[in-house]
């Protein structure tokens, strides 16, 4: 690849789709997957920029993002499972007791 702009644009597209997904979905799992898409987009940008600058920092950052994402997923899904046990639903709109 001689130019990374297309890659960054692609990452912007994916990031936006992820963000819209968070806003339009009402299933906690779907929201969460959309967030993963956003992180994925950010990773793509990191790798592209690493290529542009010719250093490894970007790739290393991606490495950490992935590890952190794994931890986040473990906790997040556990949370969704726990709520499902109480509420028998993964619909976040039904979780709106706290408000005002």
């Amino acid at each position, binding site marked *: 690849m001689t130019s990374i702009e297309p890659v960054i644009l692609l990452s912007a597209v994916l990031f936006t789709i992820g*963000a819209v997904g*968070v*806003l*339009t*979905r*009402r299933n906690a799992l779907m*929201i969460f997957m959309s967030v993963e898409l956003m992180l994925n987009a950010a990773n793509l940008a990191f790798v592209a920029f690493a290529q542009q600058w010719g250093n490894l920092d970007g790739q290393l950052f991606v490495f950490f993002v992935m590890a952190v994402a794994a931890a986040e997923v473990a906790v997040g899904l556990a949370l969704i499972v726990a709520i499902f046990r109480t509420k028998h639903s993964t619909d*976040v*709109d039904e*979780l*709106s*007791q*706290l*408000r*005002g």
Partner: protein
Amino acid sequence: MSTLVVLPILFPLIGVVINAFLGKRLGEKVVGALATLMCSAAFVVALMLFSQVSVSKEHAIHAEFGTWIGVGKLNVPFGFLVDSLSSALMLIITGVGALIHLYSIGYIHGDPRANRYFVYLNLFVASMLVLVMGSNYLLMFVGWELVGLCSYLLIGFWFDKVKNAEAARKAFVVNRIGDVGFILGIMLIFVTFGTLNYHDIFAVVGDHKTAALALAGDPVAPAVLSAITLLLFIGAMGKSAQLPLFVWLPDAMAGPTPASALIHAATMVTAGIYMIVRSNALFHVAADTSNFVALIGALTAFIAGSIALRQFDIKKVLAYSTVSQLGFMIAAAGLGAYTASIFHLMTHAFFKALLFLAAGSVIHGMEHYSHAHHSAQHIDPQDMRNMGGLRGKMPVTFWAFIIGGLSLAGLPPFSGFWSKDEIIVAALHNPLVFALLACTAVFTAFYTGRQLVMVFFGSARSKDASHAEESGMAMKLPLIVLSVLALIGGGLNLPGSMWLEHWLEPVVGVHEGGFNLPIAALFSALALVALAAAWVMYRDGKRDTSLTPQLSSVSSFLNKAWQIDALYRAAIIMPFYALSSFLARVFDLGGIDGAVNGIGTLTKGIAAALRPLQSGFVRSYGLVMIVGVVALMAWLVINTR
């Protein structure tokens, strides 16, 4: 010497600590005695300091007790400055304070929360002393806020009545509106001068005799000075109850009467005047602000004076009168007559405290009957329409009230005459202010006369009034002392000696004010006429005495009154009554008061309307975030070079 400086603050604080922690065990009597003793001790120390100031070379004692806030350039010490100005005010605060403590022992006797009352009172004295003794603006602000807190606590002292709690909150919040100006002014001072110490700031502004402002090639822009002084004045508006922030003071009368006397008449409300006089170097060079100050003061005096004409609550009359007199002081300060302002502040402290305490004594006397008989029929013991003929039943109170009233009315030789006269003379070169103040002076005499007549003359208009009894010794003694002070207080700055002017010279510079015989004679005559008119109109005890005033009483009055009375009424009184009623309505019910409440309601309304935004839906929250993200990014894209 420097330890001596903290003692006046320390004594009342000791009282606070002991009474707060051991009050229950000590019992009401001991608590009251201790509080009074501590305040008296502070007074004695204040006297000592006063004498030291008078002999010291630079007429000031500085004392510093380490740094309070010190970070970078900002260095605010726990510094105290006792100079001619602050030492004079210290005497008033501790002296009048001690008398009012003494009076309170009798007044508050039997109240289940008496201990708390004395704690608040002592705390107030200490805070007020911090306010006047601090050597920098931030310390003044500390005192400023603390006295506000004490005022809040004391107004809401009988919080069982919803009205009182609300009055307390209103006072607190309105005062804090003023504080917005004050604290911003302080910050601007720091940015401009790099310090908050009076001494350093005023040195930069330059000698107050010269208007020119240039120090070491670093002149301060006049606009900045105007901004600073204006912000400071906003603070003064709040605390000293000036237009349009005066609305809290009449409501503040909900507190115990002695507290009203001390805080809302003699001392705390004059903090704004103290602040302006203390900052005279700044105000002196900011001519625009000073003119504005004078105008606001005069307007406040006029409006509050006219409202006082039609009040029926004995304390409300005094409250509006206080606002009006504060307007006099502020106007004087705005006119550059700082000595006159402080002079009036002091005499006013005497006679208004006296009037309040006397009024408290009246209320106390009025309550006597219903307390003794547990009468089911409850009349308002503060309503002047229920009084009348108390002259014989409460002789000491009566004479005290007379002295205070005549002093307020500005009759020679009472103290109020001398100080008010100086202010009016100072206003001679400003026609508008002069006209407003002159009118107010007439109002003052009139409503004072009206009050005196309605309360003490004629015949009793209620059982409570006919069974009223004179108060005990603890309450009478302060009345007597204050009467003497109100009588001779004018001696502080008698024409000829001009003692106060010389005393304050190191702080405010020389001001060629003085005595103007024609003016003095004219205003004495006017006051007499107004008093006489009040006497004539209210003597028979029929006017304004119906608890449900009716317009039809106008005609019956016309039949009986003298012709000159009718003329007077038609030409002067009626318009002013109309004005008074109108202003009372505007300022008390609908207008500014309403605006303050309205803003409160509005904000609450907005808040309540916004609440559904917090819908509880995660996705909506995300949406709000994205709105923020998009707006933020758009802002950055547009505004980045």
